[in-house]
């Protein structure tokens, strides 16, 4: 046991070193490629621009993370409620929930955001960029989470909830104590995967003029005209947020796989 632990820690460290080396390799590659590309350009590349604007970029990154976290919270909540309503076949509400998931999964997030941002003020609902971004992203994420939860719930053998109901538990108790604890295992990897796409999707909030990382980058570009450097810098920030999450998905999947 002890031996296995040390060995896995050793492989972890060597993996870390390898990943670090690769990151270094990629960074150098980008710099060299950028330098070569810049040979033909009127002005060379200036990576210092990222350092000069580091506070603005960090502020953008913080806004992006806050937006993603809020939308992830509300999205998961909406998803859980919608999945429960659909599984319980509540009349009308279940159909409404189904329509909601189909519409919000079947149409682009871009148009959902536009509808909320440009459409709602027209019918009288006052809304600002932040609220519109949170609302749009939560509703979109909610639809995807709902399908993840519903898939998980339906995969739990029916006999279990029947037995729980027969032993006198209410529907909510059955879900809370019997069914939901079991779906954590199957739903966790896709759920984290959903949060990764959510982080990337927050970039669309820039199109409804909410000042997150993407719009911040664009406003720096408007001022400095350093397109390559800043977009690659922004991409790097998104990568730094998303890559650990996607590695997490992989390790969680592996762990779940090894236990079954």
């Amino acid at each position: 046991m002890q031996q296995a632990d040390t060995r896995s820690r050793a492989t972890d460290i060597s993996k870390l070193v390898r990943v670090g080396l690769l990151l270094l390799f990629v960074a150098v590659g980008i710099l060299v490629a950028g330098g070569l590309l810049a040979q033909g350009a009127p002005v060379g590349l200036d990576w210092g621009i990222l350092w000069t604007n580091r506070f603005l970029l960090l502020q953008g990154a913080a806004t992006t993370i806050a937006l993603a976290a809020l939308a992830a919270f509300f999205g998961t909540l909406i998803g859980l409620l919608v999945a429960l309503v659909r599984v319980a076949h509540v009349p009308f509400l279940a159909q409404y929930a189904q329509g909601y998931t189909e519409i919000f999964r079947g149409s682009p997030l871009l148009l959902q955001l536009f509808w909320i941002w440009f459409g709602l003020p027209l019918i009288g609902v006052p809304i600002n960029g932040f609220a519109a971004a949170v609302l749009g992203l939560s509703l979109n994420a909610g639809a995807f989470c709902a399908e993840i939860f519903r898939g998980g719930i339906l995969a739990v053998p029916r006999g279990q909830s029947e037995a729980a109901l027969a032993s006198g538990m209410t529907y909510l108790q059955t879900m809370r104590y019997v069914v939901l604890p079991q779906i954590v295992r199957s739903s966790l990897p896709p759920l984290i995967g959903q949060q990764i796409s959510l982080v990337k999707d927050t970039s669309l909030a820039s199109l409804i003029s909410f000042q997150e990382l993407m719009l911040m980058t664009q406003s720096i570009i408007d001022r400095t005209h350093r397109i390559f450097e800043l977009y690659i810098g922004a991409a790097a920030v998104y990568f730094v947020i998303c890559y650990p999450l996607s590695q997490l998905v992989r390790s969680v999947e592996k762990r779940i796989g090894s236990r079954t």
Partner: protein
Amino acid sequence: MGGSAPHRGAMMLAPRVAPVFGQSWQLLTSIVWVGLIFLGGTALLLLGVRQIVILAGIATSGGRGWTPHFEVVLQNLPFLLEGLLSTLQLSASVGVLAFGLGILVALARLSRLGPLYQLATWYVEVLRNTPAIVQLFLIYFGPPTVGVRLSVPVAALLGLTINNSAYMAEIIRAGIRSINRGQTEAASAVGMSYPQITRYVILPQALRVVYPPLVSQWISIVLFSSLASVIAYPELAEHAKRLDSRTFRSFEIYGAVTVIYTICTLSLALVLRLIERRVFPVAR
């Protein structure tokens, strides 16, 4: 895009859903019923919110006198359908190109050549962990600074293809890895070359395994293609924006276009699933 678990759920459901699918009339009525309940419910909900906002005195200045004018959408339906056609063309091209590129990247990801494997791995990781819109902007606005100019359609096609090829590659890789190693060994034992093994042994079987996740990727390509509107590629979302800037009927137009997209992706999913039953009948 994390589509594995819902899919697994859908597979579980298959025996129960299958008979319902056979009766297309029942399916159609259930879709119409769900649509009516959702749209009606949302209309009621929004009316309620509007009344509350007006009573609370915080309604936007223009909002109080608003009346719905969905005829704007009907009058300009040809314009929107033109955009829809363009969306379908773009997504079909991206779907085919990204699939081809995805196969190449997947093979590189499975290769035993170190540098090739590393390159493909980083290609996939970087593209999957950064937003598509950053990639599009980089491809469209980046090259002009070094004197190369890509036209809008080329940039849109290139950006979306590259982005989606990474997702495709992961799907295809998973499919190829699901095939028993013994088959490859047997094929090479009877004297088949690597390209032959890939073409006649691995890919035909892998296709069957990857078809369901491929379908969801193709559908998300239709949704992804709306991002081409940020570089003014004239597809459905861009047409909706143009119509909106001409008529200022944002609520009606974006609402209707959302529904058009949904109808389009739902029918695409249905058709692709019917094809699946026809082409891979034993898969179930």
